[in-house]
């Protein structure tokens, strides 16, 4: 923002007193990524011109015109196309032109020599952009925002909720807004407290273009560490049980692990063919389970990211529970049982080691699974997918498009209770076994906290600061 302002000023003042020249990575690359790369990127790049990497950005496209002639913006095709008066020439076509500030930045960067300030000219621009700075949250919500992420603080007193460009903290007993932690990603899809309650890990981003996991201070929202960037929203984050690492799953189809201490990426797994909807560590931290819209759950070695096994129980050809079902959530209990849920009418409870032992390519695998009764089905009735799944105190909670929270007893698999009351789809769940609380967040912004012993509603509120009643 600051640099843009400088750039703007630079246009107004004589060149001799111009401020510092713009740099590629912080100033030019973000504009290219947000406005150009979607057409001039992959294998079908328009005009055979790509600028998905710095190296490609310098290579002429079909027109053979040099994109960047150092020092000569007017002779540079990259600049010329931004300011062309012919609508057929001007980029991006059929869309708003770049802003005057953005165009000026490109011009001045070329004028200053068009230099690369990164280390790897063949790396995708998207991957080497600096973390995004996020704007402030809306002061007052004009309309409730869907609650896609909630979490209880370790003591159970506070409930943190994903807002718009912010995380909001609410009193779990009365639903009062305690504080707002602003300048976070536009959307937040996952929240987790550190065991000491001092830090919050969030996952989110900007739909279709950017994702991050961020470790923030639970009191003031300081962004202490940002993990990423991802090419799409981060849908799920988790602390490793030892508190040294985090894992994140993204709609860009990757699951990644980062070291908290220095923010380095430990491993990246690209095994899924669709969004990674949830990540969960096993109790001792040996495994990381990743669920996906690709209808599988993968169990990875948490330390290395290597595949241990793939759980295929959401795509069955043999009854019961036949279907090809997307998986939206996965969780472990303390005994090592994994639970996963998505489309379909049951939470699947299964054991990764058994799944591994019984897995394979044998054609009769499915039938064998059925006969062995390997997966337990925690059944319920409904029509729409479940998005939320939490396990605590021997109880399994799930909720989704059917607007109810369901509680199954993990041991018996019996449906214990259904919590009605939500008026809209539920996207998020959090459980606090010690205080016997289950919290749920819905599309219409409503958060409901209920007592898991009695089933009674403790408090409900719209998690929308300043919403006009």
């Amino acid at each position: 923002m600051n640099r843009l302002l400088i750039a703007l000023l630079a246009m107004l003042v004589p060149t001799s007193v111009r401020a510092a020249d713009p740099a590629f990575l912080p100033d030019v690359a973000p504009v290219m990524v947000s406005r150009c790369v979607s057409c001039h990127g992959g294998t079908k790049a328009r005009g055979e011109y790509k600028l998905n990497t710095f190296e490609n950005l310098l290579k002429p496209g079909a027109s053979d015109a040099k994109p960047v002639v150092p020092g000569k913006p007017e002779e540079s095709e990259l600049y010329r196309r931004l300011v062309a008066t012919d609508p057929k020439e001007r980029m991006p076509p059929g869309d708003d032109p770049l802003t005057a500030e953005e165009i000026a930045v490109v011009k001045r960067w070329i004028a200053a020599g068009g230099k690369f300030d990164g280390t790897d000219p063949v790396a995708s621009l998207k991957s080497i952009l600096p973390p995004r700075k996020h704007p402030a949250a809306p002061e007052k919500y004009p309309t409730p925002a869907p609650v896609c992420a909630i979490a209880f603080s370790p003591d159970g007193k506070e409930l943190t909720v994903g807002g718009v460009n912010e995380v909001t903290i609410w009193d779990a007993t009365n639903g009062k807004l305690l504080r707002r932690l602003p300048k976070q990603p536009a959307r937040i899809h996952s929240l987790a407290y550190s065991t000491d309650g001092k830090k919050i890990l969030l996952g989110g981003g900007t739909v279709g273009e950017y994702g991050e996991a961020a470790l923030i201070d639970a009191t003031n929202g300081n962004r202490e560490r940002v993990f990423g960037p991802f090419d799409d929203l981060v849908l799920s984050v988790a602390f490793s049980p030892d508190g040294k690492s985090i894992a994140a799953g993204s709609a860009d189809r990757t699951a990644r692990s980062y070291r908290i201490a220095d923010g380095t990426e430990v491993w990246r797994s690209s095994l899924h063919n669709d969004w990674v909807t949830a990540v969960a560590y096993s109790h001792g931290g040996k495994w990381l389970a990743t669920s996906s819209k690709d209808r599988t759950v993968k169990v990875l070695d948490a330390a290395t990211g290597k595949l241990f096994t793939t759980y295929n129980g959401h795509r069955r050809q043999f009854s019961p529970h036949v279907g090809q079902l997307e998986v939206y959530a996965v969780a472990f209990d303390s005994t090592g049982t994994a639970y996963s849920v998505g489309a379909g009418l049951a939470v699947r409870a299964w054991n990764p080691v058994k799944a591994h032992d019984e897995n394979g390519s044998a054609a009769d695998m499915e039938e064998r699974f059925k006969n062995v009764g390997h997966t337990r089905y925690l059944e319920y009735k409904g029509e729409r997918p479940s998005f939320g799944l939490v396990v605590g105190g021997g109880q399994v909670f799930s909720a989704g498009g059917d607007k109810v929270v369901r509680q199954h007893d993990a041991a018996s698999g019996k449906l214990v209770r259904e919590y009605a009351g939500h008026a809209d789809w539920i996207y998020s769940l959090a459980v606090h076994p010690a205080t016997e609380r289950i919290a749920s967040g819905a599309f219409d912004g409503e958060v409901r906290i209920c007592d898991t012993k009695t089933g009674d509603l403790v408090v409900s509120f719209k998690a929308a600061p300043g919403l006009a009643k």
Partner: protein
Amino acid sequence: MWNWSQRVDPLAERADHIKAIAAFDPNEAHSMFCTILLAATLAAPTDVPNRVEVYPPKVTLASKRAAVQLVVTGHFANGETRDLTRDATFTPSAESVEVRGGVAFPKKDGKAEIAVKVGEQTLKIPVEVSGQTNPDPIRFRTETLAVLTRHGCNAGSCHGSPEGKGGFRLSLFGYDPLIDAESLVRGGLNRRVDAFSPADSLALKKPLMRVPHIGGKKLNKTDLGYRVLLDWIAEGAKTNDEKQAACVKLVVYPGPSRILRSPHMSQQLSVIANFADGTTRDVTTLATIEVSHKEILSVSDSVLVTGLKRGQGAVSVRYLNHLESVHFTVTEDVPGFVWPSLPETNFVDQHVHAKLKQLQVMPSGSCDDATFLRRVYLDLTGLLPPGEKAKAFLAETAKDKRSKVIDELLESEEFARYWALRTADLLRVNAKTLPEGRAELFAEFLIDGYRKNTPFDKVATEILTASGDATKVPAANYFLATPVLEDLAETTAQLFMGSRVNCAKCHNHPFENWTQEDYYSIAAVFVRVKKAGKVVTVTPTGETKHPTSGKTLSPFGAGATDAKADRRIAFAAWLTKPGNPFFARVEVNRTWARLFGRGIVHPVDDFRSSNPPAIPDLLDSLAVEFEKSGFDRKQVVRLICNSQTYQRSTATNKFNEEDEALFSHYPIRRLTAEQMQDAIGYTAGSLVPPSELTIALAKAEKDATAAPNDKGKQAAFKKLRARTEYATQRLTPEQSPFLMAFGQPKRESPCACERIDEPTVDQALQLLNGPLVNGRLTGAAGEYAKFADAELIERLWLAAFSRMPTEAERKKVAEHLKRSENRPDAMRDLVWAIINTREFLLQH
């Protein structure tokens, strides 16, 4: 790709003849030349219209976002109409309305007039503006979904496919708003719309290509669609407008057809939706517009249709579940074209000529007698004319000799059998589906219908209402050949209504007004038909329900008065009643297609407003004639075969060489599988002509009757009677590699498209040295070897081509026979060469 025209012709000089078929006809050139000399310049239409008309006659703008497209039409003295919208000036009388680019927009409540001035003429259109202080939110069901259709989002190849695309699924053309509401707003973890930052919604960023989109750029910021989607999201992406009045009718102006005459090649369209609550709304820019022939018509975003070149095409306008089409004829003066005075046998020629004249296409001349005879025999009986018959016909001097042959053939057993065979193809009459002789029984029933010329309404009714034991009631096999209810609904619609309703099983038809309700209403006609083994019965109860609404549907067409009555009777009565929009038109079109290889509506079972008939008046008149004649099928064949149009040469001229749809020249086509097999058999001398078969049959019958215990005689008679030697005459088809190679249908579908006429390598191999050809050739040697050269040549030529050989051909063949040391071998080579000529393999 291998095709017929690339075939190497074994008799090189024969190629000249075929070339002549496709070349310029000197006689025709002569007549054309004379008329060019006589040509007078057409009186130029005056540029001042007699009368100006503005549509709509009254403008109502009842909400803030309302807009009404005005269309100004000039009527000229010569009968032409012309779009003058862009020539007119529009001056509102008050500030409540403004007009930009021919579109009226509201400014504030009140009444006014718009003065529309064209040249010296001025018309005043009353305007009423209201509701300008009320909110006018975007309606999900009538606007958002229309935009998704207009920009192709919910097309079958994109997110409208049953599985969606890229994890995002929409209902095909928005037929199910609930699916779409869920997918857009709550589905995909709510990632597609963003109420806080509407312009950053994925539903906009993707089609704008702000982020990568496999479907490419589908939306521009300047499009109305962008505005609609953006505002809809900004207003909260509300989808709960299910109570809002539904669109019940779409009115497209001008309609149903328009002529564009060069240089006035454009026409503004207006599209107005009528809603159930009586309100109307101009949806010109919300509707989805498609053209059937992109080389002939183009259409702009503001729905200005422009003719690009001579021809015909349809502009289909889709809005929600409604589809209307406007048929455009684009004409321009072709230099040197002058319509000559041409003979017309009957109304067939009148209608064809009117269309050809309008589009300035010059019909070809008449074919010669030999060509006619071969053509009409093949079309009516499936067989080549017997050589003696051809010789006599060529020598005959009576003026009405062609008519006489047509009449004669229509009365022949061969006609009944061959035409029934083509009908049976569509009714799945095969022994696998209908065992125990039932296929033969059903086939015999169909033959008898043609033999006795039973009125077609009676035949259809008998089929559609048949009950009982199918070994005794032949028509009941219709229900046994199509066992599943849905199949029965689809087959009936395709056969008798010329409509492919299959799509409507799962969703409303993408290109037509067939809805799921229609589909299950047709099924409701047959839902009470029960089948137990070979017996078809009808129960007094049973209903079909709409798969999504669950509504019980009343049977299509006409409901029975008695709730327990056989619904099929009322349906058949409705279907066959004169004036029914489908029945007569579909059958005459099928008849036409059998005689020309192409329907007036093409394909024959794809009647829909977006697939208009090539010559609408022709189809209508034939249908009316069919109804008036009491559904006399032979009468329709007779009318068509006697027309100049049927008897045209295949040779084209420079004014019709591009025509493939208007029947200005006779289309060349390959003999069908069955025709080919029998023609080879007859030419090689191993099949007797059916005229002789009649005598043989009479004798065999006599022998068989005389010796009831002689199995050999009984079998001989049976074989003759069933005509099993003739592929075109059998009761049920033989499935041989030869026939299958040439596209004989397996009789597994009601679609005429099951018969394949594309060339394949297999066909070439079959003709070069396939077992059938080899077998026939062996017989040929004995058949012809007994004749002296001159007679042999003549017989062979008459059998294969229905004509006398030319001198050059006589000479060449005589030399060939003389040169050879082994006469039978030389004979085989000769016959092989003949059946491999294009003149033989093609019907022309």
